[in-house]
């Protein structure tokens, strides 16, 4: 049998120390050992029963139960005060074979993999690379679990790919303690797996686009995500280069995403007119005199075995690269400035973002490699239609100059998601984000809560439709916020939740975050939805 260790705790915190939050019990489940001779299918179904027992225990005591991955979210989305479940050791992986495909499937079987929830991006990449495959995209780093990624909408800046949830084609949820509460979801219009194969996981099959799309970004509240089926692709290489370009040009590219006449003039290459795989703009909001912005261009190129002989080892050891992720860049800049935050902000007014201009070529997993803990950090991230990106950036940067906080901005771009509550809801969403270090009341700066309230207000007052990254800092108590961002889609999401979860289970899988966002109100099942 799988085993669960229960630690009695008083508090829990995120990786970047955005809490602490109160906690009663911290649960860690491990799979049955190999030595027992169980097959991977048996280990998988065995641990599913264990999770169902844990859910039942939570329900019996009217407590919440919440799965967490690598706790990278900075909002309190992952937290619940009663029972938090660490599922990182639930990391089985199943390749899909030809005979296991649904008769109407349009996917190549060799691209599909069933991954248990606790698989982290780094180990998934390694697993896929040994089979000549790659994830389609990831976040700026690799520590998140696959279930954590999709629950909150982890993204990179892959203009034509989307976020992590956008290559998920099947979901295995545990929605309660009964045998019928183990469900497998996929889209009716894009089936992937044969029923007889799914029976190995003892799951009830639901093929429904609306339910699948709602569960895809489930905010940790659509039950326990036990497994996901992802679509990978053949290995590819990424050619990365960071350079300073004219500010107006960088913003014009952001607003248009039209690279058809643009020449990035990267040494040794000819990417003129080529749309990059990834486009990211960095910006210091305090220095209004800067004529150029640092821009990260990443182009997708064909994989070949000996790329390291041509370009060297791409693993970005930290002293060689500055533009690894936004918080890392900020820490590197702040290292050279005074420690006192008001002085640091003052110095940022005359600071110019550094040059990098080094070519790196590597696999996705090598370009978006480890990002170690950088200290107590905050991050606020707003999604806007890319056509509003320069306007939104300027408004938020001005707000930051008026109410200074220790951070800098970046813009990343993502293709629209089909997930009901994906923050990448625009045809191409620009994520305008500020990352930085935490400050306290002694610094006499605006509080993070007030700053994030003003961010919402400034976009609303200027009629810029927006979304907010579920895993980042924000004023999640802002009245009517989710309804403003998603309108009727939020109602659809709630309806699907009430279809998948009984009323007691809706309470088990709720938390303060869901209460703040007004998505937790238990609804009775609606007969109008197909299950």
């Amino acid at each position, binding site marked *: 049998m799988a085993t669960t260790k229960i630690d009695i705790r008083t508090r*829990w*915190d995120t*990786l970047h*120390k955005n809490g*602490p939050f109160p906690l009663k019990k*911290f649960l*860690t489940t*491990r*799979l049955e050992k190999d030595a027992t001779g169980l097959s991977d299918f048996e280990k998988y179904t065995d641990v599913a029963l264990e999770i169902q027992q844990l859910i039942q225990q939570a329900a019996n005591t009217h407590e919440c139960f919440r799965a*967490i991955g*690598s*706790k990278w979210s900075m909002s309190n989305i992952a937290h619940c005060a009663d029972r938090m479940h*660490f599922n*990182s*050791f639930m*990391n*089985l*992986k199943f390749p899909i074979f030809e005979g296991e495909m649904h008769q109407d499937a349009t996917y190549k079987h060799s691209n599909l993999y069933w991954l248990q929830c606790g698989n*982290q991006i*780094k*180990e998934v990449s*390694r*697993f896929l690379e040994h089979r000549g495959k790659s994830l389609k995209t990831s976040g700026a780093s690799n*520590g998140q679990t696959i279930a954590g990624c999709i629950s909150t909408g982890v993204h990179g800046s892959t203009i034509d790919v989307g976020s992590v949830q956008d290559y998920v084609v099947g979901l295995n949820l545990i929605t309660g303690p009964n045998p019928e509460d183990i469900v497998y979801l996929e889209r009716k219009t894009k089936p992937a797996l044969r029923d007889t194969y799914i029976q190995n996981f003892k799951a009830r099959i639901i093929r429904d686009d609306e339910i699948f799309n709602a569960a895809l970004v489930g905010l940790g509240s659509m039950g326990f995500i036990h497994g996901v089926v992802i679509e990978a692709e053949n290995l590819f290489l990424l050619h990365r280069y960071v350079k300073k370009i004219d500010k107006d040009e960088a913003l014009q590219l952001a607003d248009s995403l039209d690279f058809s006449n643009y020449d990035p003039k990267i040494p040794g290459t000819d990417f003129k007119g080529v749309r990059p795989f990834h486009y990211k703009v960095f910006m210091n909001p305090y220095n209004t005199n800067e004529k150029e912005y640092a821009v990260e261009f990443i182009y997708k190129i064909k994989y070949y075995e000996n790329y390291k002989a041509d370009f060297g080892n791409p*693993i970005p050891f930290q002293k060689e690269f500055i533009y690894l992720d936004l918080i890392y860049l900020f820490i590197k800049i702040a290292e050279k400035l005074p420690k006192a935050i008001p002085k640091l902000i003052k110095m940022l007014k005359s600071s110019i973002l550094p040059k990098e201009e080094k070519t790196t070529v590597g696999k996705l*997993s090598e370009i978006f*490699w480890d990002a*170690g*803990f950088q*200290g*107590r950090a905050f991050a606020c991230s707003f999604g806007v239609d890319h056509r509003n990106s320069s306007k939104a950036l300027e408004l938020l940067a001005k707000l930051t100059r008026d109410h200074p906080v220790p951070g800098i901005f970046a813009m990343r771009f993502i293709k629209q998601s089909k997930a009901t509550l994906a923050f990448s809801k625009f045809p191409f969403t620009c994520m305008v984000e500020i990352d930085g270090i935490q400050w306290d009341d002694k610094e006499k700066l605006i509080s993070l809560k007030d700053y994030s309230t003003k961010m919402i207000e400034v976009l609303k007052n200027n009629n810029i439709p927006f979304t907010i990254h579920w895993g980042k800092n924000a004023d999640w108590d802002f009245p009517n916020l989710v309804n403003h961002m998603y309108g009727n889609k939020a109602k659809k999401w709630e309806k699907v939740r009430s279809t998948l979860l009984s009323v007691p289970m809706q309470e088990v899988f709720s938390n303060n975050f869901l209460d703040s966002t007004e998505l937790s109100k238990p609804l009775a099942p609606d007969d109008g939805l197909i299950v």
Partner: protein
Amino acid sequence: MNLRKITLYFGLALIMTSCYSVRFQVANGQWEPADTEREDSYAGYNVHTLDTIVTRKLTTGSHYFNITKCPSEALHTVEYRATFGGILLNAVTFGRKKKVKIKYVCIKENSLM
């Protein structure tokens, strides 16, 4: 007086420079995670520490440690720390006693499939 100062500075420099750590890690392995409240570069890692003094007996040849706490049977990170005290102990005991201070992180179980 000057000689004292020079000796003091030399001693301090010796202590400072003899206290260092070296970390080795595999580039593409998945570290074993842990939910801790660490606020250093090991935040999120399950770190094991070995802090002991090894006494070499006359009959003992080269000695090694068996690491038994890795369910995956593989290592992700090893950090070796040298301290002035450790070097001094080794010197004054003519190599008979060695202070060993290492941190290690295992590869996550099932991640090598």
